[in-house]
């Protein structure tokens, strides 16, 4: 398999994505450019439309022919409790058109430090932190162009969350994979992304380098997010 780092990846671009739910607009036309291997954080309070934008972004980029992986908020939203870890892994391989057993599982597992997990067990036989890292490992099969993480650490305790983000960060850098991090946690976002996109009421209201938004937030939404970030002191 060609490793991701040797391929020159194209910039990803979505334009004028919108979404309706039961007759109400929940996402107004929104565009975003993602440079190769760029890290972007989509931040905003609950209900601001950031997850909706994330899903629309994945669907649109897939339509354009890019490989995009997604990591949902909690492992409960990613893994079937009745199927084994081995089953999930093979299913993910097949979905990407790979023959089962061809993805470099050992390397990915070593990267995320879950080599000791028993693949015959079902998800609930693993700790939640390991489950979430397994989901991230699955998302990294076949080195996608972009990985979209939706509140990836909210189900984890801060120490495990920090370690997971650290491991993921290294891997993304090595493989040249871009990342979109959807979160309401500005502290988490500012640690791992270079650019922030602030969402409010279905609009992308502000988009700038992370430091600029932290230092001089322009819009009310960004100002209130910056004012209420309490987690900057955490190790992650």
């Amino acid at each position, binding site marked *: 398999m060609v490793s991701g780092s040797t391929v020159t990846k194209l910039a990803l671009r979505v334009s004028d994505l919108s979404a309706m739910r039961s007759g109400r607009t929940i996402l107004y036309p929104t565009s975003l450019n993602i440079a190769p291997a760029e890290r972007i954080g989509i931040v905003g309070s609950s209900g601001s439309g950031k997850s909706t934008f994330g*899903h629309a972004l*994945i669907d649109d980029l897939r339509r354009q022919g890019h490989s995009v*992986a*997604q990591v*949902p908020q909690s492992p*409960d*939203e*990613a*893994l*079937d*409790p*009745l*199927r084994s870890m081995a*089953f999930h892994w093979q*299913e*993910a391989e*097949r*979905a*990407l058109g790979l023959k089962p057993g061809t993805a470099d599982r050992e390397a990915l597992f070593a990267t995320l430090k879950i080599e000791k997990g028993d693949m015959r067990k*079902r998800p*609930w036989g693993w700790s939640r932190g390991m489950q979430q890292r397994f989901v991230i490992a*699955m998302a990294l099969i076949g080195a996608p162009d972009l990985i979209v993480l939706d509140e990836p650490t909210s189900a984890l305790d801060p120490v495990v969350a920090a370690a997971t983000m650290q491991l993921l960060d290294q891997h993304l850098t090595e493989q040249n994979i871009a990342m979109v991090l959807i979160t309401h946690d500005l502290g988490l976002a500012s640690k791992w992304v270079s650019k922030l996109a602030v969402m409010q009421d279905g609009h992308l209201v502000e988009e700038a380098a992370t430091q600029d938004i932290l230092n001089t937030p322009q819009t009310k939404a960004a100002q209130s997010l910056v004012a209420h970030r309490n987690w900057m002191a955490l190790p992650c």
Partner: protein
Amino acid sequence: MSKTLFGLLLRTLVVLAGTAFLTFALLWNAPGDPAAAIAMARFDALLSQEVIDQVREEVGLNTSFWPAFWSWLGPLLCFDFGNSAVTGRPVWPDLWGAMTYTFPLAFAGLMIGLGVALPLAIFAAKRPGRLSDRIAVAIASLGAAIPAYWLGLLLILLFAVQLGWLPAMGARTPAHAILPALTLGLGVAASLTRIIRSGILEARGQAFLPAIQRRGVPEAAIGRDHIAPHAAIPVITVFGLELAFLLEGAVLVEVIFGRPGLGTFLVSAIAARDFPQVQAVVLLTALVFVVSNLIIDLLYRLIDPRIGERDA
């Protein structure tokens, strides 16, 4: 696993022992003189007190409850069901003969029920709330509302009397089994359809499904690998109840269609107060239930081991 298996077997034994005791006690204390009923069945005439007393002694009804119970239970532990109080013949060959009629009928009914219910439920669950779904649910509700004895008569009227395609009464050829099996099967299909449909709908609401779809897994694979196992759990639960319905229904259906089998066997045994025969049927039924529930329990644990862990 071996520990849970041991527990399940222990439960099975307790249920069987309880059933044996309760059946015997209820029959023993039922109103009326059992000796008179047995004598009636034997000689088919008005009898003198002398003959009745003779029968009482012969059958062992002149002792008290406990000696009678133990003298029945003792041989039973060696799988000896004893002899019929009326004919004096061993119970087991006659019982086995009846089973060879009833069990295939019940099995055919179950298969017909499953064969009708599964496609109908999948069809209904495709578009919940739409017209197709409502029609399927209406058919299922109608099926559940029609009693077996009426459905059986309707089928006889249509296929045996009007069209003359199928025989109605008796059990001489396999064709004789078609109408009874259909009567049983349609009743089973009615309740199974609703359970499978709601099982599928509930499974489809599982939180992890959107992520698996987004991972690019094809719909057919999601249905087979994720929705089916989740939908199977409520369906398996109901299967035990279906079995009760089947045995109960088989008794009725056998009477309607004039078929030999456990139904006819049980009805004549109860009328004649033939203790050994009645007890044999009840114990057999209990055994079928207990064994099928054991299988259901094991299936559960196979599909979702958390079920076993929780009550261990």
